[in-house]
């Protein structure tokens, strides 16, 4: 098996991570924000797996599993709150939650 160089994987994961972060930064729709966070978590997963592959360990995959769990939990709670948000304001725009400041 021809190993994919670890740098390539890491570069990809960095790009993915940045994409996700950029999404959180620019999207106004809360759903898209949550999705962008998923992308970030997946980038992390990729980095762990490629790291595991580089060192030939299972640790990377184990961490990936944990990351997936985290992603699921985060989204579960996130969506519950999105529901609350929508019920109250009838919008998914995150600008609505900027009352507290100063």
């Amino acid at each position: 098996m021809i190993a994919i160089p670890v740098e390539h994987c890491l570069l990809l994961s960095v790009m993915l991570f940045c994409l996700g972060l950029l999404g959180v930064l620019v999207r106004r729709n809360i759903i898209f924000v949550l999705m962008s966070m998923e992308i970030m978590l997946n980038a992390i997963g990729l980095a762990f797996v490629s790291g595991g592959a580089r060192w030939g360990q299972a640790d990377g995959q184990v961490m990936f599993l944990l990351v997936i769990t985290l992603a699921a939990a985060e989204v579960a709670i996130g969506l519950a709150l999105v529901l609350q948000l929508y019920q109250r304001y009838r919008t998914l725009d995150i600008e609505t939650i900027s009352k507290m400041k100063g």
Partner: protein
Amino acid sequence: MLEFLWLVPLLPLLGFLLLVLLPLTKRAAAIVGVGSVGAAALLTLLIVVELFGLSSDAQVFRQIYWTWMQAENFTAQFAFYLDPLAAVMMAIITGVGFLIHLYSVGYMDEDPGFARFFAYMNLFIAAMLVLVLGDNLVVLYLGWEGVGLCSYLLIGFWYDSHANGYAARKAFVVTRVGDALMALGMFLLFLHLDTLDIQQLMANANDQWQTGSSLPTIAAALLLGGALGKSAQIPLQTWLPDAMAGPTPISALIHAATMVTAGVYLIARTHELFLLAPDIMFLVALIGATTLFISGFTALVQTDIKRILAFSTISQLGYMFLALGVGAWSAAIFHLMTHAFFKALLFLAAGAVILCVHHEQDIFKMGGLRKRLPVSFWSFMIGGLALVAVPLTSGYYSKHEILFAAAGNENSGQLLWLLGVLGAVMTGLYTFRLIFTVFFGEENTRVHESTVGLVVKLPLVVLCLLSIVGGWFVLPLDHVFPASEEQAISGITSLVTDVAPFVGIFIAYLVFHQNKALADAVVAHTPGRLLQRFWFSGWGFDWLYQKILVNPFMLFVRINKNDIVDSFYRLAAWLMRLIHRLFGLTQTGRMQWYVGSIALGVVLIVGAGIFS
């Protein structure tokens, strides 16, 4: 009796305490007030008699009570020192003081602050006695400041008027300028001579310092500063005319007979130091001569009877300084004494006049009072003659001693003498201007005689006597002061000196009695009027001080009322609030902005990590 020396200042002090602490009736207050000083005077008499009964070498008595302050090598004992000089001063203070107290009983009769008046007076006598008896400069300073305080209290005695309060504070502050200099002088003396006991100090100064070297010069100059303030000499003379705001007995006691002579006493007391500083000696003489000359002119144009007497006092004090400056110590003290008699007499007589004309003090609103107020008139006449130094009066003897001493001085003696003689002419002029205006001419005031009772008249009579015979006293001060060599006085000098007062009186007769239009005509011209105004203002000293000292101070004080230093802290606080607001702006409440901040932080950290 000498061992009862401590009782002399204590008696008036006890009188003061009684008057302050107990709610006495007017009668009781008078008894306590006058009685305590009377007792002190009696005791003084006994003590003085005993002291002069001793052989002339042993006429020194020191009494140490307790250690007042002690630190390192500095020790100030609370101690009194009695020698002929102090004895003479004591006698003047208690004697004249008693007479004035007595007079005040009548003068202040209707005043609601009767007891307060006597309390202050008693305190003054006590302080003045401490001043002259102090064995060291610190005790002297205690009395020195004490009399200043009493002077302040009594000038501002009628406190309803702001002007009185202002005059009182002015007196205190201006003399305090001198006091501060004197304090510095004491520090300097102690630093170099290790003691403040006057006798020891003088001995050490003679031992350690060369005549004319810089240290004694500076020290003497600083002490002179104190003396100038207290004795109202140029440039610190401006407070005395204003001090006339106080009741007239005060002007007589404090601002003529006793307190203002404290400066003379101080210099006489420390004459050995001044002898080491000939430059300062000359300065003293020059200041005295200038002062007597300048204030003579000022007295000439005043209209307020008490202010005329005040400037006259300054002028006479100038004579005493002149005497001190030329080394005629005894003459200075002699003149101090005669001046105490006749000037107290003049003030008391003026007081009696003022009382009878309903507290009018403008001499041009009086006139022809000779017939209505014979006692006052004759008192004024005798006092005036003594003041202008007409032969056979006490003033004649003392002033002539001074002028002769000045004439004989090798250091610009002629100039000093000339100024003195011109001053004598002026004295005659302004004194008789006053007498002619007030007591001669037409009557134009209502007078009520009734208020002048026996207690007022008796002191006047006694002082009249003293003003005449005072010149015949021989002060036993030979062992206190170095003997001054007899000067050969030329006949011309002697003649001019004798004639000068009469010239003044004659001019006064011409201008203010015979031909009153003449004076008005002089004043009518612009130069004349300007000169009159210049003299009237006391040669512009007040104006000058107002411009260069008081106004800048007031300006600073007014601008800086809110404390410029505080604005620095207010600025800092304001800056903090500003930064708070700016920082607060970053807290927008928008989530994406927050994410942006995190992202920025990450970029910075990672960037720093990678590129470091």
